[in-house]
């Protein structure tokens, strides 16, 4: 088993809590794991990415080789396209449809969505809308994780357990809304 996942977004959008959830689940499943993160300069509203590598064998490189990613999970549509050189031809791209516009020359959203739809395996999800329905506008990132979960080779329950662990300190309510967000995301993908 091998899952090479690229997480992408804009600094401050919370891709690291997606990474942390998958990471906890991977440890619970006794998988080998490497997860490289971006800290420092780019966290100030710049583009950020994280390479997450899960395997039943030891993982050598911290970085995913070009053309080998099984999955891109993006919390921002334009950012999802930045990592296409890494996506394998069988890979999936799962992205939020809501743009984060903090640059003057941000392209038209229609054009971006058109490019995303050219990818054979893609899912575009209104994560912000679904998160609001689930009761927490801030868990859009977990909705996207839910939407990507069918393409991660771990039991869905282990992602749920990871959410419980990760958000446990913040109280039952936060855990519940995030679980709801995760399930709603999955629901969107499988139906």
């Amino acid at each position: 088993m091998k899952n090479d996942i690229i997480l992408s977004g804009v600094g401050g959008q919370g891709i690291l809590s997606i990474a942390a959830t998958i990471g906890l689940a991977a440890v619970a499943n006794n998988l080998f794991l490497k997860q490289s993160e971006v800290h420092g300069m780019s966290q100030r509203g710049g583009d950020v990415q994280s390479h997450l590598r899960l395997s039943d064998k030891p993982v050598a490189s911290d970085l995913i080789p070009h053309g080998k990613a099984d999955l891109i999970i993006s919390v921002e549509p334009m950012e999802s396209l930045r990592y296409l050189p890494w996506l394998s031809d069988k890979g999936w791209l799962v992205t939020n449809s809501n743009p984060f516009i903090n640059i003057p020359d941000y392209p038209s959203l229609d054009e971006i969505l058109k490019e995303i739809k050219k990818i054979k395996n893609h899912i575009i999800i209104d994560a912000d809308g679904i998160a609001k329905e689930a009761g927490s506008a801030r868990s859009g990132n977990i909705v996207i994780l839910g939407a990507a979960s069918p393409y991660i080779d771990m039991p869905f329950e282990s992602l749920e357990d990871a959410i419980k662990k990760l958000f446990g300190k913040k109280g039952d309510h936060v855990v519940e809304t995030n679980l709801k967000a995760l399930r709603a995301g999955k629901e969107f993908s499988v139906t």
Partner: protein
Amino acid sequence: MKRVLLLGDEAIAQAALDAGLSGMYAYPGTPSTEIMEFVQSSKDASDRNVHREWSSNEKTAMESALGMSYAGKRAMVAMKHVGLNVAADGFINSAITGVNGGLIIISADDPSMHSSQNEQDSRFYGKFASVPCFEPSNQQEAYDMVFEAFEVSEKYKLPVLFRITTRLAHSRASINLRETIPQKKLSLPVDPLQFVLLPAIARIKYKSLLSAYESLRYESRISKYNNFKDGRRRDLGIIACGIAYNYFLENVGESVNDFPVLKISAYPFPKELIKDLTGRCNEILILEEGAPVLEEAIRGILDDGIKIYGRLDGTVPRDGELNPAIVAKAIGLPLSYGQDVPSLVKMRPPSFCNGCGHADMFKSLNESIKPYGTGHVFSDIGCYTLAALPPYNAINSCVDMGASVTMAIGASDAGLFPSVAVIGDSTFTHSGMTGLLDAVVKNSSVTIIISDNSTTGMTGGQKSHATGRIEQICEGIGVNREHLRIIVPLRKNHAENVRIMKEEFEYKGVSVVIASRECIQTATKRKRSEN
């Protein structure tokens, strides 16, 4: 055995705690910051009362760690690569004094300059100081090596340099932890003159450092972190240093036994192991993350030995970090590739946060400096350096911490008027204060704007030594009270702030404008934790 998921930085911090660390010293700097942050939030550290406060800069951190070592305890100091330039005086001389308690200096290099002004390779400093240098290839090795580094440090009574790079520092992996070693007791050096580098003493100590280097070569030869594994092929042998070894393994996969390969993670260079490899192969490929330190050494000036591929002949790019693709190409393996990035994807450079005081300060600065034309504003390193980018285009320099003040002095000496420096609060206490003293003593005609967001923002909001002290510091250094102005960089104060800046630009002497407004990131975090 306990297993935990840790960043490379965190693995190093946990290892130091498990190896009986008594004092952690650091100044923030990407990619090293999380080492101290981990120690500060560690329950182990607080249970064991490990010293863990930030220092003003890397030099004070280095020297405090040396003091902890003088007192017989294990100490670690962490910094980014350019921090080692700041700490270099203490570092190089600590090799001559030697240590008492084990001392590890972590220098985190940032090849490709993700968050840095340059990509210098700290391994040069290991050779320069004639000390042992470790370069882990993965997070588990980083954890384990800290134990050995302390042992080597105490065995040879030398500081040990520990070089890591961005990808190791900021990548998480599962780590097996070892049993905890208790801290050492206070015990002073046996020789009361060990740390007294008067020339007569230093000459003797330097000779013993040079002869110890021969023993270190032997240590490198037998180190478990340097290993040579023969392979089937005779046409090409590989030398991979540190993290480069991972990219090699990633690429060769199952056919790892084809290549004779020497992995190097402990320095000085293991000469005999290198000869073992070169004696068997027609050609070699050298993979190093950073500068071609080993490659230059093997080629020498004559470069008339075995055929060598590496960064110097273009097989590997001369600059920038390695990645799996670069290494695949260098070995001659086929490259995989997804699709090109569509042309509509735009660059998204970092920018000021909404509600950042620096931004409002620069708006006022731009307006007040406008009559004088461009080229008057020296700046420094921090979030405020983002003002170099559009729409601000407000600053003309960013060189090294503190250089805004001193470059403004030099330019003013040359006749530039007005000559303005913009420096952050943490940068000011790191290296700006001594420059300000120069300005006061010489009565230079400079205006220094201290953009005070009460935190070390760029590296993630660590406590700033300047907080609540800037005004007193400036007065103490001798800035005239009438030209020590305090402003609040808010939009509603714009007109008044422009007027104050203009007044101070016109003043022919030292003036300081402190623009104070809390960083929006730390303010948000603080409010969240208060609720």
